[in-house]
């Protein structure tokens, strides 16, 4: 497993020289000469989060955007709960104004509470199919987020609960969630205002997270 994770990191790192969640993009308004996409967002992603991301638009036959992002969970302690992603999305196919896009990201995320600190390497993959006009777009999305391997480090409080608890890396996968929803946006000048919302289900399709929804309001600014 360690070797697999290292390989994934190597490949993603190799593919994304510009250290850069998939950005919500209006492909129809994205011009060929616009290389850089800056994004600010906020919303509900398991808890209330604030996010920042950067995308680099490659000059390829099939439009590709390499991305990196960070999102921080709201709360009094800023950097205890966060998620970083690195990867990209590709515009695969188009029939008139209908477009088919796919994305893949490597994930590193951290969670801390009074009992435990978790660090996780994971991956997410998704598809977006929608209708795109230069001024607006609306689409549907489906994705899967897999927590591949997780490191557990317990505090003294949990060690009081269970002195024999084992710290360290845990595998196989400690979790996985599907998401499906909609996204849309309005574009003007070099900007997009975007909105994503949907439902989250655990990988067994029988249970859900405590709050089984996500919503994200975003702003993109595109530069040459």
């Amino acid at each position, binding site marked *: 497993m360690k070797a697999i994770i290292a390989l994934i990191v190597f490949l993603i790192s190799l593919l994304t020289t510009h250290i850069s969640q998939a950005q919500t993009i209006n492909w129809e308004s994205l011009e060929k000469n616009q290389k850089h996409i800056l994004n600010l967002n906020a919303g509900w992603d398991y808890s209330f989060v604030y996010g920042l991301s950067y995308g680099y638009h490659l000059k390829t036959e099939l439009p590709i955007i390499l991305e990196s992002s960070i999102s921080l969970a*709201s709360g009094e302690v800023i950097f205890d709960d966060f998620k970083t992603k690195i990867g990209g999305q590709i515009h695969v196919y188009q029939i008139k104004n209908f477009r088919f896009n796919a994305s893949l990201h490597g994930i590193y*995320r951290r969670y801390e509470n009074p009992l435990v600190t978790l660090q996780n390497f994971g991956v997410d993959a998704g598809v977006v199919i929608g209708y795109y006009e230069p001024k607006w777009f609306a689409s549907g999305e489906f994705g899967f987020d897999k927590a591949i391997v997780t490191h557990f480090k317990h505090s003294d409080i949990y060690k009081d609960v269970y002195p024999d608890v084992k710290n360290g890396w845990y595998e196989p996968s400690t979790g996985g969630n599907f998401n499906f929803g909609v996204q849309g946006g309005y574009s003007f000048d070099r900007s997009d205002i975007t909105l994503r919302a949907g439902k989250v289900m655990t990988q067994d399709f029988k249970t859900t997270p405590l709050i089984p929804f996500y919503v994200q309001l975003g702003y993109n600014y595109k530069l040459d």
Partner: protein
Amino acid sequence: MKTKTLYSAVIAVSIFFFMGCENENDINESGYLVPKTVDEDPSIPSIFVNGTQLHSETFGNPTNPMLIFLHGGPGSDYRNGLNVQQLAKEGFYVVFYDQRGSGLSKRHDKKSYSIQLVLDDLTEVIKYYKTSPSQKVFLFGHSWGAMLASAYVNQYPNSINGVILAEPGGLNKKLLDEYGEMSRKINIFSEVTSNLLYVDQFITGKENQHAILDYKYGISSSFTYAKGNDEGIPGPSPFWRIGTTVLESFVAISENEGFDFTTNLDQYQTKVLFLYGELNKSYGLTFAQKEASYFPVSEIAEVKGTGHEMIYFKWENVEPLVLNYLNNLK
């Protein structure tokens, strides 16, 4: 390109060695993240009753009046109620057990639980430990355990010689909802909320992965004692394992079928002692009076300087009230 490849290789190798410093653990292995249960570890004291194996201990002379402690939850365990064992020195035979599927007791499938089943378990625990037909039996319930004790005397009003109820969370569905609204206010921007919810992307757990689900709920328990909580809980209190499956099962029963443990309480003629913590802003005298009104005879006592977890944090203030009540009925 060479620089790029070298850079990527360095990151990958670093991560490989970083992860390689420790052994890998199997998330599904028993005893790694939560303790083994009685069916997995024979060294844990247990009894076999009503088709299950319960983690159980007793303190005191078995012929003394029996006092059975009923822990909270559903799904928690009696570890934070162990102060009650001190009543053994006062002439009581103190019995502890982790309810079915809770704490170190054996786990069961989610669909197997019912209110009647846990009432039957209590009947069998009493039978198991009772040493003579004339031995008096008292129930001491905390939170959900107090709801269970009420349900028991509601159904079997002639079999229990006295009941102590420490902040039952609601003797029927309406009261439970009322208490829930008062005690579980959420600020979506707070650290407490992130601590409770953000973990859902790290650990999920399928319906039959009990240990993972129990662990996940256990680490989320810090929510209950977060700074400024309305229940007046000053910090963590110990537990062995939170039985997530039994908790989820009873939440589903409550939501789908409802419950009412008050329908026959007017038949219970013995005085009932209600305890509430001075610092629990969600409970208080008003809610205690509302719950106590279902019993023909009751006494309400405030436990000074504590909140909902009064037995663990302020036993010295709980014991005199309980002992006075029990000695009058002994």
